[in-house]
């Protein structure tokens, strides 16, 4: 680890912290329907959308209606994308003449983008036409992120409201999130990225004759417009196969810095929006702090582990002054690669600027654990907030008992119904991750995809199902996932991770909204101080850790112990 590496990490964190409040305030005003700078240029568009869709923006929905609206919209999204992928060969903007996807790949990819996972069983520049990237993938990057933001707001309204029956209007949240939040920021970010060297064209791939006289075909495309929203919406699906490691998808250290900033921008801001909505920004900062603790511990661990380099390379007399460079880009080095890896897996982004598969065992453990904790360390846009709020309910339930009161969070009593729904949501994580990993580790179809053997091969499967269930999308990319077995099982894992979590979460939102408000007293456990932050972190780590310890022990931990003894597989 170098001083410079740490300075970069701390600059990042300081800037993120500085942006949290302004972004949170902006989001608060947007979703509160207040007038903002963009109301004038875009207000007519918003109203036009509602008119065309027959939506009354003043009418709010119950949790059931909100959830059904969300499901209906996602169903339309899935069908549209699935058909688009199957029809690719007949559609425009396809200079390379890519044909249709296989049905299982189309199924997997459609689910992947609708669930904001953006797992890629395919390589972008060898599979997808520009038309598909724009009309299909870019669109879903926007709307799946907007969906997540809406869901988080709905849950927060559940906390903020008293004896209420409605929790907002899905169509309004969806439209506002896209129009006033995602689109404007994406436009600015895309221009910045183009300036840094990111292509934005519709030309066919370029044929070059290299200095040594070899033909080199260079992939092109409308990259920047997709990358901006891919990071901002914590989607992470790369335009190119190598994702943000590709020099076109992440040309400079500065573009890299902007991209990781975009990943956390909205999740961090939402903590503040949450605070404002429950009328105590400190509540938001408490969540922000808990997330930050987990984030910084993750970065430090990952950075430390990768800085050690591969001990087996050291014994060969190789100088690894900055650490393990297999799978990493020179311009990012170890500090920026591990920072990116931690951020992209904390948030359910999944973009990568280095190959996690080639990380040291403990370095690769960090991204895996980040996802296993349920993507609550800032997390996906919206998803991170609603995820950590459910953990907060569990934490407060246990802690609240220890202060001798029926537990309450933000003035809402936590009773059997909330605990039941929360447990239901949280349970889908281990069920899907451990269940599918167990199945694939004994089936020949599962084992066929492995690029590595031994414990690392196990880690590849575990990582894949963790990533899919957590709706992350990053991979231990050696796994050959474009097979019917993996496409289908990973597709199901993504569905479970998204919707089996969302539905009980929304039911919780409805139950909370209907509750009376209990004002806090000196006997109420304060959910803003260091104690709460420590408790929340503790519950997240303990619940996640206890669930996945055996699996982790058999993957990264065994591999770590093996590498120390010079074992290879």
């Amino acid at each position, binding site marked *: 680890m170098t001083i410079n590496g740490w300075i970069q990490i701390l600059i990042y964190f300081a800037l993120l912290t500085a942006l949290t409040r302004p972004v949170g305030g902006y989001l608060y005003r947007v979703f509160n329907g207040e007038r903002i700078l963009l109301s004038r240029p875009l207000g007519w568009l918003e109203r036009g*959308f509602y008119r*065309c*869709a*027959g939506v009354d923006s003043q009418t709010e929905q119950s949790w059931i209606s909100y959830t059904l609206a969300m499901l209906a919209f996602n169903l*339309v999204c899935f069908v549209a994308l699935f058909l688009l992928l199957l029809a690719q060969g007949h559609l425009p903007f396809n200079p390379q003449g890519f044909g249709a996807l296989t049905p299982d790949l189309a199924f997997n990819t459609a689910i992947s983008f609708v669930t904001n996972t953006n797992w890629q069983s395919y390589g972008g520049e*060898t599979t997808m036409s520009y038309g598909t990237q*724009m009309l*299909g993938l*870019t669109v879903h990057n*926007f709307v799946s992120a907007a969906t997540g933001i809406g869901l988080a707001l709905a849950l927060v309204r559940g906390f903020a409201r008293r004896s209420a029956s409605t929790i907002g209007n899905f169509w309004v949240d969806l*439209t506002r999130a*896209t129009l006033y939040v995602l689109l404007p920021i994406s*436009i600015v970010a*895309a*221009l910045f990225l*183009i*300036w840094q060297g990111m*292509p*934005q064209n519709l030309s066919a*791939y370029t*044929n*070059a*004759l290299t*200095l*040594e006289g*070899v033909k080199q075909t*260079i992939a*092109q495309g409308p990259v*920047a*417009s*997709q990358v901006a929203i891919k990071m901002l919406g914590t989607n992470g699906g790369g335009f190119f196969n*190598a994702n943000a*490691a*590709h*020099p*076109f998808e992440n040309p400079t250290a500065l573009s890299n810095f902007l991209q990781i900033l975009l990943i956390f921008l909205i999740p961090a801001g939402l903590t503040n929006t949450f605070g404002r909505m429950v009328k105590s920004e400190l509540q938001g900062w408490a969540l922000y702090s808990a997330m930050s603790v987990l984030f910084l511990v993750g970065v430090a661990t990952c950075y430390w582990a990768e800085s050690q380099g*591969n001990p*087996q390379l050291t014994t*060969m007399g190789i100088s690894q*002054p*900055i*650490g393990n460079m297999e*799978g*990493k880009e*020179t*311009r990012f080095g170890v500090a*920026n690669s591990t920072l990116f890896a931690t951020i992209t897996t904390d948030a359910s982004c999944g973009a990568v600027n*280095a*190959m996690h*598969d*080639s990380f*040291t065992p403990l370095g690769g453990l960090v991204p895996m654990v980040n996802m296993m904790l349920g993507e609550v360390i800032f997390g996906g846009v919206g998803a991170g907030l609603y995820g950590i709020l459910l953990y907060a309910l569990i934490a407060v339930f246990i802690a609240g008992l220890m202060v001798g009161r029926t537990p309450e969070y933000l003035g809402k009593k936590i009773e059997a119904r909330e605990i039941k729904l929360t447990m239901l949501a949280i349970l889908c994580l281990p069920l899907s991750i451990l269940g599918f990993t167990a199945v694939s580790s004994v089936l020949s179809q599962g084992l066929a995809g492995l*690029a*590595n053997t031994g414990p*690392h091969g196990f880690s590849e499967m575990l990582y894949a199902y963790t990533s899919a269930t957590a709706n992350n999308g990053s991979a231990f*990319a050696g796994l050959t996932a474009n097979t019917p077995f993996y496409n289908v099982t990973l597709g199901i894992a993504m569905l479970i991770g998204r919707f089996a979590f969302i539905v009980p979460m929304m039911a919780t939102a409805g139950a909370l909204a209907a509750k009376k408000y209990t004002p806090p007293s000196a006997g109420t456990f304060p959910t803003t101080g260091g104690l709460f932050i420590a408790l929340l972190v503790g519950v997240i780590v303990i619940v996640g850790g206890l669930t996945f310890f055996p699996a982790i022990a058999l993957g990264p931990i065994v591999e770590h112990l093996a*590498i120390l003894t010079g*074992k*290879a*597989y």
Partner: protein
Amino acid sequence: MFSHIRPAIVLFVLLTLLTGVAYPLAMTGAAQALFPAQANGSLITKNGHIIGSSLIGQNFVGDGYFHGRLSATSGADPTDASKTISSPYNAANSVGSNLGPTSKALLDRVAADTAKLKAENPNALVPAELVTASGSGLDPHISPESALFQVPRIARARGLNEQQLQALIGVHTDGRWLGLLGEPVVNVLALNLALDAVGKP
């Protein structure tokens, strides 16, 4: 549920037009107007021919050129399209090696490359960048140490003196952005172009 179908379809279509058509096309137009060089892939032309992109590495193999990182990219086998073969720096199919740290394949590969590099320059430790594959397989850069490591070989091949080459590397070393972000790097293609300008091998 049915009452939600109409808004679902209508809003999906409208949002697709906005974010899937208007937005990327507008960005393309703006990019072509404002930053045409970058927007088209930062291409480098020499004598009217495109010789590559300043952002995309090339597979240098000659002793007289600085070599880049290892690349794990592959391409279609020209003899049998259903098979793939190793095709380093294939800029139409970016990929990393994805070998795990305890992979025998990785260790064997590193051992072989190390042996080769040690023969070239027995006096220095082999820098990690030269025996590890980049994440994209298209990394245009190497670290200054990796460039310096190759100086004896290139000096021999081109008959240049080492100080001259070291100075050239110094000129083509890009520091961190504002001295803070990223790592110091040398663009291999740019360095080799400069090398060619100094004198043909």
